[in-house]
């Protein structure tokens, strides 16, 4: 049989003879087996054996949610692999036989938080093992704090691991620390100190005696099952919180059973007398994608009509419906058609442009040679993408003309410093004024505090009224549906103005609240300059006004912005009432696309809500799927007044809807995790940022998206 091969099939491009194959040949092309060895999550989370880590890493972009129980500990961990060579994780450890003293509830178990890192130093090769350096329970209370150097080497179905551990991991070793030769500070290690939760105490790193740990993992002939044997370097007589455990044997035995792509179960026998049970859910963020079967089909390219259409209203309707373009203006200048529009649907602007080319080609006569797409966002001009119309038409007819079209494509900065109408005959304009709204569920939650898991599920009504291209009212109304905030009881100590620690009062006292109600105006101030001003109820806890200016050259890896706001604290019921506290807050921010593994660095210096001065570092990585993972930390002059945690920090994952739904979308949702809500280093949650609004000043994957111009959903 002949296979219907799409004109753009990659196989076809590679193989000169265009071959059809008989069907049985294709059915067998199954993906190769997932390598199971060296993929298991340890009891603490992160790739390893049971109690001990290995030098193995998860695939890039992997995220694992992990639960594990070995009496008296229950551990809940999230691990991510943001780089090939870096594993990061955070964990809650619940200690079943110790009470949570800060909690009013005597039944509640002690809960400890921890952060882990593992860095790969060397990739395995024929002779050398894989080598990694890791930090477990880094900073924080450090109850389980350890540092380790570990090597893993595979031999067919066996994966051997041997490591040296400092701290918890090596507590049973009792070997002298060779680093003591360098400095006396490596001689001994302080025991844990729960009073200094969140402090980053570097003084103890790699100090104290060291111990050896290691083990072997065996891939059984039955692929989903691996077995582990481990030598545990810990000394269970010195468990934290004066909680010694009996250890009959330093050897632990375990098995891991993988149930499909996303779930695996673990069971084991540890310390010679204690059972271990574990469960891991995992997914890969780097490759998350979904076939776009819900998108409209691109229009078929036809012969150009003999005369150009007069019905630009209809053209702009088609551009909106099929190409995801909200058209602001269409202008004809000699043989050029200039379309000024905002992207509303496809993450790739080239996909939008390819679809628009088809629509315009079928409506404009042969004498129009160039289609120019001037992209705008919130009324601000971003860039100019230029297509040779005839080259497009030829390429649509035959792949032989691909190169001519592809290499003829170009994008440029807007050379005029303002967004006035281009010269030429104006065919269509729309001031973009209009109203839209959306109803969606929302979740507020607080995990891991002394009150346990607090949540609030609410219905969220979003409404926008756009007054013109550059101005709009936005509002967000929240109606509480279910919550367990009656359990809310704990209020953190604070020597700073209570700018964030009233969070529980806000959640508790609001059944119907206004989360946001503001007017925003934007302007393009110069060739590379953008501005925005806003006023109203800016966020859940603050009302006021402010503005931002951003310098962002076209397709540049760096941008700089400054924002300044005056805000007043809102009443707990989240209506229009205000409390007494008011302040000035603002930041100067540098945005740097580092060029290293798609990492974006953001550094902000300024004044925070409690009046403290400081700096925020934010590092994030975006995968090809559009998913972004990042972490931030803020250091301010609040110092000891900050209280538990010492400084503000957190992780986030931003997930584009595009990765999960069968219709294209430019929207994303962000899930952030902040271990502690405190008053120091608290930032105003501004609803819009100029850096976000002007994201298409960057070319991103534009040039790599070429093949998608020809994709049929």
């Amino acid at each position, binding site marked *: *049989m*002949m296979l219907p091969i799409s*004109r753009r099939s990659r*196989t*076809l491009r*590679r*193989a*000169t*003879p*265009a*071959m*059809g*194959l*008989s069907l*049985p*040949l*294709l*059915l*067998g*092309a*199954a*993906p*190769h*087996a997932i*390598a199971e060895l060296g993929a298991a999550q340890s009891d603490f989370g992160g790739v390893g054996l049971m109690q001990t880590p290995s030098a193995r890493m998860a695939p890039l972009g992997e995220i694992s949610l992990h639960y594990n129980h070995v009496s008296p500990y229950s551990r809940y961990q999230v691990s991510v692999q943001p780089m090939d060579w870096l594993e990061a994780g955070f964990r809650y450890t619940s200690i079943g036989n110790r009470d949570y003293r800060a909690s009013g509830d005597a039944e509640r178990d002690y809960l400890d938080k921890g952060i882990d890192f593992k860095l790969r130093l060397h990739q*395995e*090769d*024929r002779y050398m093992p894989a080598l990694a350096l890791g930090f477990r329970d880094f900073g924080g209370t450090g109850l389980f704090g350890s540092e380790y150097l570990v090597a893993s*080497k*595979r*031999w*067919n179905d066996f994966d051997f691991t041997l490591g040296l551990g400092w701290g918890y991991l090596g507590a049973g070793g009792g070997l002298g620390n060779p680093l003591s030769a360098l400095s006396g500070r490596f001689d001994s290690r302080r025991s844990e100190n729960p009073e200094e939760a969140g402090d980053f105490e570097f003084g103890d790193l790699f100090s104290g005696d060291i111990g050896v740990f290691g083990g072997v993992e065996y891939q059984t002939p039955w692929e989903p099952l691996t077995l582990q044997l481990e030598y545990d370097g810990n000394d269970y007589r010195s468990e934290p919180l004066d909680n010694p455990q009996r250890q009959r044997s330093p050897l632990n035995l375990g098995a891991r059973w993988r149930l499909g792509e996303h779930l695996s179960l673990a069971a084991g026998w540890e310390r010679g007398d204690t059972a271990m049970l574990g469960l891991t859910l995992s997914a890969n963020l780097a490759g998350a994608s979904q076939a776009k079967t819900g998108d409209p089909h691109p229009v078929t390219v036809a012969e150009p009509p003999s005369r150009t259409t007069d019905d630009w209203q209809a053209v702009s309707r088609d551009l909106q419906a099929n190409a995801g373009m909200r058209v602001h203006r269409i202008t004809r200048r000699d043989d050029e058609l200039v379309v000024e529009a905002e992207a509303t649907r496809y993450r790739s602007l080239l996909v939008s442009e390819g679809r628009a080319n088809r629509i315009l080609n079928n409506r404009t006569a042969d004498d129009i040679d160039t289609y120019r797409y001037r992209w705008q966002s919130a009324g601000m001009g971003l860039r100019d993408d230029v297509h040779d119309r005839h080259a497009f038409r030829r390429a649509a*007819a*035959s*792949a*032989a003309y691909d190169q001519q079209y592809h290499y003829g494509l170009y994008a440029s900065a807007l050379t005029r410093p303002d967004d006035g109408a281009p010269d030429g005959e104006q065919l269509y304009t729309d001031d973009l004024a209009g109203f839209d709204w959306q109803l969606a569920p929302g979740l507020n939650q607080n995990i891991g505090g002394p009150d346990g898991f607090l949540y609030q599920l609410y219905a969220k009504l979003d409404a926008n009224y756009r007054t013109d291209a550059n101005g709009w009212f936005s509002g967000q109304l929240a109606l509480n549906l279910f919550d367990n905030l009656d359990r809310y009881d704990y209020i953190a100590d604070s020597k700073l103005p209570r700018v964030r620690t009233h969070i529980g009062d806000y959640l508790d006292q609001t059944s119907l609240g206004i989360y946001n109600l503001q007017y925003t105006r934007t302007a393009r101030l110069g060739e590379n300059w953008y501005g925005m001003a806003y006023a109203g109820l800016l966020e859940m806890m603050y009302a006021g006004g402010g503005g931002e200016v951003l310098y962002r050259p076209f397709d540049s890896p760096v941008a700089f912005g400054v924002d300044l706001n005056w805000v007043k604290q809102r009443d707990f019921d989240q209506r229009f009432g205000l409390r007494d506290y008011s302040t000035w807050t603002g930041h100067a921010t540098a945005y740097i696309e580092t060029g290293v593994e798609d990492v974006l660095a953001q550094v902000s210096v300024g004044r925070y809500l409690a009046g403290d001065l400081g700096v925020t570092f934010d590092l994030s990585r975006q995968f090809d799927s559009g998913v972004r993972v990042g972490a931030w930390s803020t250091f301010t002059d609040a110092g000891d007044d900050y209280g538990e945690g010492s400084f503000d920090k957190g992780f986030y994952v931003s997930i584009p809807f595009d990765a999960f739904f069968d219709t294209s979308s430019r929207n994303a949702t962000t899930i952030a995790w902040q271990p502690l809500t405190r008053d120091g280093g608290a930032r105003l949650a501004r609803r819009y940022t100029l850096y976000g609004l002007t994201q298409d000043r960057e070319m991103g994957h534009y040039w790599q998206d070429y093949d998608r111009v020809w994709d049929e959903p």
Partner: protein
Amino acid sequence: MPALADLDRLGWCETPSWVEAWTPRGVTRLDWRPGMTTETLLEALPESARAQSEHLALIDPRGGIRRLGMAAWNHESATLVPGSRVVLQLPLDEVSARWVDASLPDFLATRLPGDICRTFTPDAASRLTTATD
């Protein structure tokens, strides 16, 4: 569709009964069996053919290429379909060997994946020819 004039040949192949191993010892054809994997293929080869290779390239009949580990420290396994070709990396650390490792799979990806293939040149579609590759 691409312009017909740009194509060398069009056609289809009957499913062959073999898989091919391209090793430092030469090219060997083995009978394909259901459930065959790269590992069972390697086991069927003499030890000297496996040499000290650490990677292999698997070329599927549609011209897709995947590189897999094959040594004790990195071995992976993939299912083979009839007409697959497996190229073992040359156990030499030289520029010319690296060039062969990179180029030979690319070349094989353009070869017909069978012995009995019906192909015809697009500009003479009526002249059916039988090619043995």
